[in-house]
Structures are given as structure tokens and as C-alpha cells.
């Protein structure tokens, strides 16, 4: 069981190595002439005004929250889908009821206006 995952570890490691290699080569052979104007934050030629790392639009939080709810519930559906072929009809209906409750949650968020971009 565990040996199946070794390949994934190796591949992810290779991904890091293969992606950093061109960056390392770049840092060796590329010219380097830093200049205060060049290292400035890019913005239509003017200095940026104010801080960038600030609080942002609440709408993004709401979509993330709706996503988290859905994602967790869908993860519960995967075992049901895998076992689907062995399940009796009653258990399938139970899964369907679960999905309908999920859809009810979506409908609630929709009616509350959480899905509207304002």
C-alpha cells in the first residue's frame, strides 16, 4: 500500500527540481543590473500609493465559505459513489436525500443573496 505512494513523492520532488533548475540557470547566466527605478512595484510609471496588503472585498470570503461547505460535503459523497454498485436501492435513495439537503443549502445561500456579486 505505502509503496504505491513512493512514486508520487519522487515525482513531486522531481517537479520541484525540474522547475527550480531553469531558475538557477537563469540566475547564473542572466545579466544583473539592479536600479531603484527598476525594482519598484510596477504600476503605470507612477509610484504606488498606499499599502497593498490590506483588507479586501468581503464577497471573496463569502464565496470561499460556500465553497468550503460544498467541498466537504462532496468528499462525503465519494465513498458512496465508490460503493454504489454494491449498494441496495435504499442506500442510493439515502445518498440522494443527502444531495437534496446539499441542494437545499445552495438554495438558501442563493435566496440570502450570498451568490450575487455586488
Amino acid at each position, binding site marked *: 500500500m505505502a509503496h504505491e505512494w513512493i512514486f508520487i513523492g519522487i*515525482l513531486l520532488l522531481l517537479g520541484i527540481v525540474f*522547475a527550480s533548475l531553469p531558475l538557477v540557470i*537563469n540566475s547564473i547566466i542572466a545579466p544583473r543590473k539592479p536600479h531603484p527605478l527598476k525594482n519598484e512595484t510596477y504600476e503605470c510609471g507612477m509610484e504606488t500609493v498606499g499599502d*497593498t496588503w490590506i483588507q479586501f472585498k468581503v464577497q471573496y470570503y463569502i464565496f470561499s465559505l460556500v465553497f468550503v461547505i460544498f467541498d466537504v460535503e462532496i468528499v462525503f459523497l465519494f465513498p458512496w*459513489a465508490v460503493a454504489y454498485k454494491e449498494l441496495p436501492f435504499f442506500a442510493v435513495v439515502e445518498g*440522494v436525500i443527502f444531495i437534496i439537503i*446539499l441542494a437545499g443549502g*445552495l438554495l438558501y445561500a442563493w435566496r440570502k443573496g450570498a451568490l450575487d*456579486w455586488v
Partner: protein
Amino acid sequence: MPEVRVGDLLVSLYDLLGWGLSELGLYPSVVSILQKLVAGFILANFCLLTPLFTIWLERKVSARFQDRLGPNRVGPYGLFQGFADIVKLITKEDITPASADKTVFNIGPVLAVMSVLGIWAVIPFTSTMVGTDINVGILYSVAVGAIGTLAIMMGGWASNNKYALLGSFRTVSQLVSYEVPMIIALLIPTLLAGSMRMNTIVQEQQVWFIVAAPIAGLIFLISGIAEVGRAPFDLLEAESEIVAGFHVEYTGMKFGVWMLAEFLHAFTVSAITAVVFLGGWRGPWVDQYPLLGIVYFLIKTYFVSMLMLWIRVTVPRVRIDQMNDLNWKFLVPLSLAVLVMTALVDKLIPVDFSAGSRSLILFLANMVIVVATLLVLRGVSRKEQAAQSDLQAEVNSI
């Protein structure tokens, strides 16, 4: 010494390598790790060099779509344009803005490539050739792909640039939203195959799942395009609004690595679509010659890739509220409805039905959903039109 089968050449070579290494007197676990290292090295090279060809193909084909010639200077038909671009990018100065968070700024592109490459570990090229056939393949591919979202957020946030930050906000709200219909669409093949193992899903497709689950396939394709962030869902790097989105501040090869990750991600989504809905390596004579599976797999992958390109050059960019509406008010309810329908209908079909008639019944049930969806959409648009003409009448009366 293991026998070398021409029909399954690459796997035979893999076995031969293991045999040769164990003849040297190494421990079996060391041999297995060395074998996996070599296989992973080849797979990573394949994955990172394919985008060079895919980028050329996309530029060439989209040029023909727009009545241009496309790259045609470097090599025959401009085939070496990608290599020229890499040479150019790698010799460019790498500027890190003084106000950026340097560590996170540098980790971003590397993490993006890593996450996409990780998906290829579970994609079956032939019936025997798959990196590792874990029993949670589909879930794993979604989970590892989601690290890419984190990488984009890291890159955008660490740049300390307002355009980049806006780009990564849009990225997170888009990629995270479209993951929901994408996973629900993937639940349907899981349900039909009874397994999350990629190779089992391909083996179960006596009839391609696109026949039994056409709506799920379409939803997966649409949300896949959104996951990759291409037109019409490219508002996370909309040039006319936020310059280039999350990678405004990246220059030189770091920008190149972002591009590589993006193109590889597009290719990966096509590959998953081909595996899960179009029967992966299935095709004539694969039973005798499993190696042929690679050809079928790549043909199907490029077919989906070109389909995505066609959509990209045809459809204009959507607005952010349209993007969210399409996802939460259309794709998510539709995918839930299709999931419920598939689960109930497939259970009601008697067990002794053949795969063909089973797929046909599911296809017809899908068509019922298509008709119902169109009726609902027509009702909604009529209501909206009526509201609009009422408003117009009110304005006119004033």
C-alpha cells in the same frame, strides 16, 4: 531475465532495468526506488517538454483561426519557436521587486509546476503503463491540482502589487468555485465505474462515459477550462483590466515557469477528460499491443486540447459576476441534478442489461435533463425580458 515484449516495450524495459539492477546485488527496495526514479525522470521530461510542442500547435492553430500565419521563422513551420523563446527567457534579467516577499515570490512558480506534474503520477498511458495506480486516483488528481491555486495566491500576494493582488483574488474565487461542479462531474464516472482508480475507470468504459454521461463531460470540460484560467474564463489575467494578473511582477525564466505550468495544466485537464470520459487508452488492438494505448490516449488528449482552443478563440471573456452566476446558479445545480438522475436511473436498470443498452438508457435520461434545463432557461429569460420591458414602459411613461 524477463522476456522483452514488443507490444509492451516500455514496461518490459522497466522490468529489465529492475532485473539488471538486482543482478548487481542491490536490495529489492533500493532497486524499486531506482526504477521509480528513472521512470519519474522520463515522465517529468515528457510532461515538461510536451508544452513546447503544444504551445507551438496552439499558436499555429489559433493563428489560422484568426487568419494569420503564426510562428513560421524558426525551423520548419516555426516548430522550434518554443526553444527560441526558452533561450530568450533564460538569458533575460530576473527582476524581483524591492518590496516583494522574496521567499514566497520565488516559491510560487515552482509550486505551480510541482502541483501540475503531480497529477501525471496517476494518469494511465496504457493498461500497464501508469505512474502509480492508487485507489483514490481521481480524488488525488483534484487535490494535487488544487495546490496550483495556492501557488497563484502566493505569487500574487507576495508581489506586493495591486494588479497582482486583484488577479489572485479573482483566481481564488474562480478556481475555488469551479472546483465544485468539477468534482461533482467526476463523481459520475466514479459511480459508473465503481472505483476511483484511473485504470479501472478506463477498463470499465466498454462504451465511453461521454455517452452515458454527456452532461457531466460537458460540465467537466467547462469547469476544466475555468480551472486552467483560459478564455473565456481568463479574467484572472485580463490584460485590459489588471495588466497580467498575478504574474505582473515576474520576469525572465520565472515568468517562463509560470507559463509552462499554465500550458501543462491545460494539457493535463485535456488528459483527464480523455481518460475519464473518452476511454483513455482504449482503442482497437490494445489487448495485443498495449503500447498502442499511448497513441490513442494522445490523440484523444489533443482532440480535447484543440476543442478547448476552439472555445478560447471563439468566445469573448466573461465578467466576474457572470462567471460566478454561471458556476453557482447554473453548473452546480445542474451537476447535482445529473448526479441524482444518474444514481437513480442506473440503479433502476436491471443488472443483466449489457453495457451498450445501459449507456443508451443513461444517454436518453441525460437528454431529458437537457430538455428540462432548456425549458427552465427559457422561462427565466422570458421572465427577465418581461421585467425589462416593464421597466422600459415605466421609463417611457415618465
